[in-house]
């Protein structure tokens, strides 16, 4: 399911299945997309930040078109205890690899992988902070 911003329209709440993972997409060329994500984060229930949120920064192949400060994005990831992935959607290989990665994360968040839960992501984030 794709949405340009949050909150999702309430009319369809009863039809909506359970949400297992939220991927916030930030276009490195667009300051607006970062602002949009920052505003949308306010509408996300705190329980999602236990491993069910991740930030996906796209367009990183074009360094010269960079419109946002990547340090700010990394800090956003730290603040919300969620991983930040960088990718370039215009390159097919990276696009496919990123999609696979997201599906894998989704499987874990939906509880389809025995022995691993979304909380594992939070623990991984915590570990790198201690190092």
């Amino acid at each position, binding site marked *: 399911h794709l949405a340009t911003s949050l909150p999702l329209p309430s009319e369809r709440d009863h039809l909506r299945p359970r949400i297992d993972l939220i991927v916030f997409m930030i276009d490195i*060329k*667009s300051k*607006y*997309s970062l602002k949009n994500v920052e505003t949308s984060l306010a509408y996300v229930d705190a329980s999602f930040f236990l491993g069910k949120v991740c930030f996906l920064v796209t367009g990183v192949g074009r360094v010269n*078109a960079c*419109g*946002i400060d990547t340090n700010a994005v990394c800090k956003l990831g730290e603040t919300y205890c969620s991983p930040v992935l960088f990718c370039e959607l215009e390159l097919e290989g990276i696009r496919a690899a990123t999609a696979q990665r997201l599906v894998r994360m989704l499987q874990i968040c939906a509880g389809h992988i025995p022995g691993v839960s979304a909380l594992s992501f939070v623990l991984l984030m915590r570990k790198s902070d201690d190092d």
Partner: protein
Amino acid sequence: QNADPQKTAFLLRKAWTLYSVTPLHGFRRARLRDYARLLSASIAAEKQKGLAVEVGVELDIKVALSSLADLRGSELDEAALLVQLSSRSRASSSNSEDKLVWSGWFCSMFGDDLSENVPEHFTCLPLFLTHGAESYTSLVGSWFQKTFDCCFRRLAISPLNLSWMVAMWAGCKLDRAASAVELVFSVPRLSQPLDISYAIHPEDAKALWDTVQKTPGEITQEEVDVFMDCLYAHFHRHFKIHLSAAKLVKVSTAIASAHCDGIVKILHSQYLPGVLMLLTELAISQIQ
């Protein structure tokens, strides 16, 4: 370090195309005359090969290399190196003046980040600025590449860096009436490209920057973000367009203007070192 304004006046009000250059190997400042001769011969040879620069006109290209001793940041920087190509038409009389057809200069303004890590026999002049026909740039560039084993790359300026520039330059104090602060945006993904030009009164821009900047002489990314966000919000209030979603391609102030393709024009001699320092930094980060 203040370079003699008369000597650097020729740098102002010209559109310079920017390149980053890797360190030059085996460059000796004492041999400038020899280099000029060799470069001249190289250009003449290329012309013979048929890579004619000016079609149908008989032109002799004279090459001059000189040092601009004062154009550097600190003693650790190499002095700037100026290359000038002049032509004298063979048809005209012998006492006619040479006409300057192309100029390019190498420069390092506080480029210690690069020069302190470089082995012996290497000369660091990471910023290269050219003005004149691309064909001459290419001839000069290839000769330098062959002779000093260096590498030239066009220096593009990202929207992020352009916003730093406009925030810094809009905040500069100017005694006379200044020209407007202008930002040009290009709107992506439309069937016909759309450019939006946003002009701000220079005093308003400076007043805004003064409320944002906390420590004089220091600028942080947060301050630049706040400055730009205010400009975007103001524009959105009036036109309901999110400029933050468009691509910032050019900024113009009374100090200098810069285009994302790596073209700058410096308008004020007082701020020449400041602008060059920023450009040197960009060139170095492109090299590393």
